[in-house]
């Protein structure tokens, strides 16, 4: 209860903070729309030469693209602002103040900031999913929607775990502003179903850097494709990744020597 109030307070403060930059909203909407338009144009070029790509139709890949933008939007709204602030504070030595606050440090570190304007990616991503499903004339049952929601939740949990683990590296290597770029680098491959990639890359993207569980698996569940054999593994991998990332964060925190001492 108290924790919910803490999150609410941070959320409100962030909102007030961001209303100072209202002009950003329009710029971000245009940027998101442009990015999605180019991506759809790219799909049109590919599908001008084929009917299926790695077994996926254009409409199914469209849904997957929507999932990609939705997750991307969540990352840039909540995750990257909060965790990048941790990186900045550790470097500047003000992270100590956060540790002194009477609330769990991980909760504060992960929810302190949110850049509400990037919600445009989330909304447009959802719209692309909707358009894709409409063109598929997919019969989405309540149960199907629930499975999709579960797969999305698992995907987002994996994203969070990867970001948290990369951020935790800051306790050893102070200058890691660019380390989160590694996530974006791998995440780019999530614009296409993992079946498209050659065997070694597919294994890498499924088991080592599980991008497959972030975009391919959720899109699989809702587009009526035969579920990937690994679907049942999604919640397990998500739970394991979260657990490992949280433990790594705690371990990192114990190694944190502060800037002033």
């Amino acid at each position, binding site marked *: 209860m108290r924790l919910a109030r803490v999150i609410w307070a941070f959320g409100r403060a962030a909102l007030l903070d961001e209303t100072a930059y209202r002009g950003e909203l329009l710029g971000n909407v*245009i940027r998101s729309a442009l*990015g999605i*338009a180019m991506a759809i144009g*790219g799909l049109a070029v590919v599908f001008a030469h084929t009917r299926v790509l790695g077994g996926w139709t254009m409409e199914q890949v469209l849904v997957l693209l929507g999932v990609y933008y939705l997750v991307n939007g969540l990352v840039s709204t909540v995750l990257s602002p909060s965790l990048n602030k941790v990186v900045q504070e550790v470097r500047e030595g003000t992270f100590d103040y956060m540790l002194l606050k009477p609330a769990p440090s991980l909760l504060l570190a992960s929810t302190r900031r949110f850049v509400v304007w990037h919600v445009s990616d989330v909304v447009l991503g959802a719209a692309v999913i909707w358009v894709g499903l409409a063109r598929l004339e997919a019969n989405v049952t309540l149960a199907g929607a629930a499975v999709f929601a579960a797969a999305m939740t698992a995907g987002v949990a994996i994203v969070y775990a990867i970001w948290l683990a990369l951020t935790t590296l800051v306790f050893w290597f102070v200058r890691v502003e660019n380390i989160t*770029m590694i996530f974006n680098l791998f995440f780019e491959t999530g614009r296409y179903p993992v079946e498209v990639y050659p065997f070694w890359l597919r294994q890498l993207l499924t088991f080592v850097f599980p991008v497959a569980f972030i975009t391919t698996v959720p899109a699989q569940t809702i587009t009526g494709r035969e579920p990937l054999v690994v679907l049942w593994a999604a919640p397990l991998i998500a739970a394991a990744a979260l657990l490992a990332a949280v433990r790594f964060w705690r371990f990192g925190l114990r190694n944190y020597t502060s800037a002033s001492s």
Partner: protein
Amino acid sequence: MTFRLGLAGPLAMLRAEMADMLQYRVVVFLYALWGFIHPIVYMAVWSAVAGEGDVGGLRQSDFTAYYLTFMIVSHLTVAIEIYTFGPMIQYGRLSPHLLRPMHPVWVAAARNLSYKAVAVLLLIPIWTALFLVLRPEFGATPASIALFMLSLAGAVLLSFLAGTGFALLAFWTTRSGSSWEIWMGLTFLLGGQVAPVELLPGVMGQLAAALPMRYTLGFPIEVLLNRLPPGEVALGLALQAGWVAAAAVIVALVWRAGIRHYEAVGA
């Protein structure tokens, strides 16, 4: 404002920028890694489409050769001015450079070249490994290699001028990034990134042939892989030269207007 001719200044600038880049080699390397991701994704996509057959006459091995060349060409033609020269203008760091007897555009050029040179040292081992593993088959001939060098030089120059042109918008707006994103988006679609230009359907293909984006990226690759008849190579080189000249004039005009604006603000 007059600038003394001669290369002593630019060369000194290049040495300084080189030392600066070497300091940040890890960051430089991380940025350079971006040059791999798109070619790998689209190499995979088109290989999946082609399967055992071909797409518009291009087989899997052709896509491998195309996108491996793409990795090198896109690194050599990347424009970073929007992140280097743009902020210099925006935060007033341009001012001291205006006092020097050398055109400030040389600063941008020196930084561009030193970024590419430093990153290339780190990229060459990876490129070599990829070539050894994937063993692309090139339809290159001595003539196509010579023409490739020529068109590559044109592409490097054109993309630098384009990057500088968009960076100069920072004289007027703090949001020059948005227009650059449109340019990059068009390069993605029409420049030979999402697909070799010859695979672009209908009007997209015609647009790509006329607009400048292809001549900053895809054109040299097509030339090297012998995908174009001689007439189209000549036409492409002429168009590229035309775009370089046009871009140079535009950049010069925008610079003159911008620098007047900059002084007028009193920055």
